[in-house]
C-alpha cells in the first residue's frame, strides 16, 4: 500500500507536465489573441451615441438600428488607420447584401471624404465622432472595430482589427446568416 502511493508520487511531475502541455496546446490551436478583449456589450442594446454629419452622406444615428429589417454592421474607421484600408475591399463586397454603418473616428473631414471618394463608399450612413468621446460608450479601444447588430438593435458580436477574408467568411457572414434566419 505504501509502495503503491510512492509509485504514484513519482508520477506527479509528469502529470503536471501534461496538464501544462494541454494548456499551451489549447492556446496554440485556438489562436486566441489574449490582448483582444471581449466586449461587455454583447447581447446589450447598442448604446445611444450622438454623431455629427460628414457632408454629403446620410448621418448614422441610433434610429437606424431601431427600425432595422435585418442584421447590420457598424464599422469604426478612420482615414489615418492603415488596417482600415486593408478591410475596405471586404466591406465593399459585403455592402451589396448587408447594411453597413460607419463611424468615422477622430478624423478630419477632408481626409475622410477623400478616402471615400478614392476607394468607394461601403456605408449606408456615416456618423463622425470627431473627438472620439462618443466611441468610448461603445468600448472602442482600437480602430478598426466592427459590431454586428441584430434586428432588435442588440450587439451580437464585436470584431477588433481589420476584417480579412477569413474573418468575413468564417466569422462575420455566419453570424449574419444566423440572424437572418431568426423569426422569419
Amino acid at each position, binding site marked *: 500500500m505504501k509502495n503503491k502511493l510512492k509509485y504514484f508520487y513519482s508520477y506527479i511531475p509528469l502529470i503536471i507536465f501534461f496538464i501544462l502541455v494541454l494548456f499551451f496546446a489549447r492556446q496554440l490551436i485556438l489562436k486566441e489573441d489574449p*490582448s483582444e*478583449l*471581449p*466586449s*461587455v*456589450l454583447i447581447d446589450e442594446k447598442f*448604446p445611444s451615441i450622438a454623431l455629427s454629419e460628414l457632408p454629403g452622406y446620410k448621418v448614422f444615428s441610433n434610429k437606424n438600428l431601431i427600425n432595422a429589417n435585418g442584421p447590420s454592421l457598424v464599422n469604426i474607421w478612420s482615414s489615418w488607420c492603415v488596417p482600415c484600408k486593408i478591410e475596405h475591399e471586404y466591406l465593399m463586397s459585403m455592402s451589396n447584401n448587408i447594411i453597413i454603418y460607419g463611424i468615422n473616428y*477622430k478624423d478630419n473631414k477632408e481626409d475622410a471624404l477623400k478616402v471615400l471618394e478614392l476607394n468607394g463608399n461601403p456605408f449606408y450612413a456615416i456618423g463622425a465622432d470627431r*473627438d*472620439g*468621446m462618443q466611441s*468610448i*460608450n*461603445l*468600448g*472602442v*479601444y*482600437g480602430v478598426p472595430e466592427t459590431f454586428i447588430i441584430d434586428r432588435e438593435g442588440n450587439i451580437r458580436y464585436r470584431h477588433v482589427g481589420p476584417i480579412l477574408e477569413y474573418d468575413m467568411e468564417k466569422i462575420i457572414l455566419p453570424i449574419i446568416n444566423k440572424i437572418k434566419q431568426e423569426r422569419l
Partner: protein
Amino acid sequence: MITIIKFIFCFFIIGNSVLADANTKVAYELYEELRCLVCQNQSLLESNAPLALDLKKVVMDKIELGQSKGEIKKFLVDRYGEFILLKPKYSMQNILLWLGPILFLFIGFFVTFVFLRKQSMYKAEQLPLTKEEENSLKKILDNNVS
C-alpha cells in the same frame, strides 16, 4: 476697502487652486488604477496612447463634475469590462485569484509538514543491528585495517 477686496480675491484664488489640487490628486490616483487598453500592461498614468489621453480627459471631466471614484470606475467598467481595472475586484468570481496564493502557501506548508514528519518517523524506526549484520560489518572493517 481696496485691501479688503484684494484679501477676498486672494482667498478666492487660493481656495480655487486647493480645490483643483485635490481634483488632480484624485485623478492621478485613478489613472494609476486604470489600465491603458492599447498598451495593456501600462496604467493610464504611464501611457501616452491617444485613447489613454482621451480616457484621462473623461476621468478628469467626471471628477470636476463631482463624481466619486467608484462612479467613474463603474462608468468605465460598464464600457470596457473589468479588464480596465489594474486591481481586480474582490468578488466571488475572482476569489481564486485573490486567495490562490494563500492556498498554495498552505499546500506548501502541508507538504513540508508531511515530509518532515515522515523523515522523523524513519529515524524512530531505526533498529539495532542484528548479529549477522554486526559480524559482516566487523569483517569489512577488519579487512580495511589489514
